[in-house]
């Protein structure tokens, strides 16, 4: 079985972005910049389908 770690790296990157966006979201909330909070929430939500697509693409190739 040949292993492909590109997808793993991509998913790790997505997890990192999740953490960063969550941090920004919470801080912007306390700074009362509510529009920014909403933007970071959307980014966090969009990351989930992306992660899922990365996973599916990896399965198809295997």
């Amino acid at each position, binding site marked *: 079985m040949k292993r492909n770690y590109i997808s793993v790296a991509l*998913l790790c990157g997505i997890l990192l972005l999740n953490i960063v966006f969550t941090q920004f979201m919470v801080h912007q*909330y306390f*700074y009362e910049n509510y529009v920014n*909070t909403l933007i970071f929430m*959307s980014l966090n939500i969009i990351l989930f389908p992306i992660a899922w697509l990365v996973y599916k693409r*990896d399965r198809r190739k295997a």
Partner: protein
Amino acid sequence: MTDKNNRIPFDEDNYTHNINRDNERKLDRRGFMKTLVGAAGVFAVSSLPWGAVAAKELLGLGNKEYPHQKIADLNAVAIGDAVEFHFPGEHDSALLIRLGDEKFVAYQNACTHLRCPVFWVKDKNEMICPCHHGKFDVETGAPTAGPPRRPLPEIEVEVKDGAIFAVRVKRYEA
């Protein structure tokens, strides 16, 4: 049954014959990726409440006016002294400091780092957080040292009929 393993090649009815350890396939490459996708899902779902409260504030539902609340009698607070009170809710602890004859400042004193109660040190002229030694400027509530990065929310105060009242919590943008 007994000769099952003696045939060459023997029938492979599962793939477990090459597992040597317990739970060997629990966290292989694919299992790890599944965990990561799951984590992304958890992040997405747990972002929702923050978005919801932010949207609520944006729509102005959070701009409630609270009834003015008496903090203390004017004579009871000496210059340089501080009084603890709660405003606007009974769990939002706050601190009133009398800086001069006519000069009062009040802040919600939950530290903007990790919410420890900030207290007033009279002879150092600073507000100090005991948890990680965060310091705040009394005049503005801005952080001056330590981990906090955000100013303390200021409370507007009013002196009326020989008593001090809390009026509202100021917004940052204002």
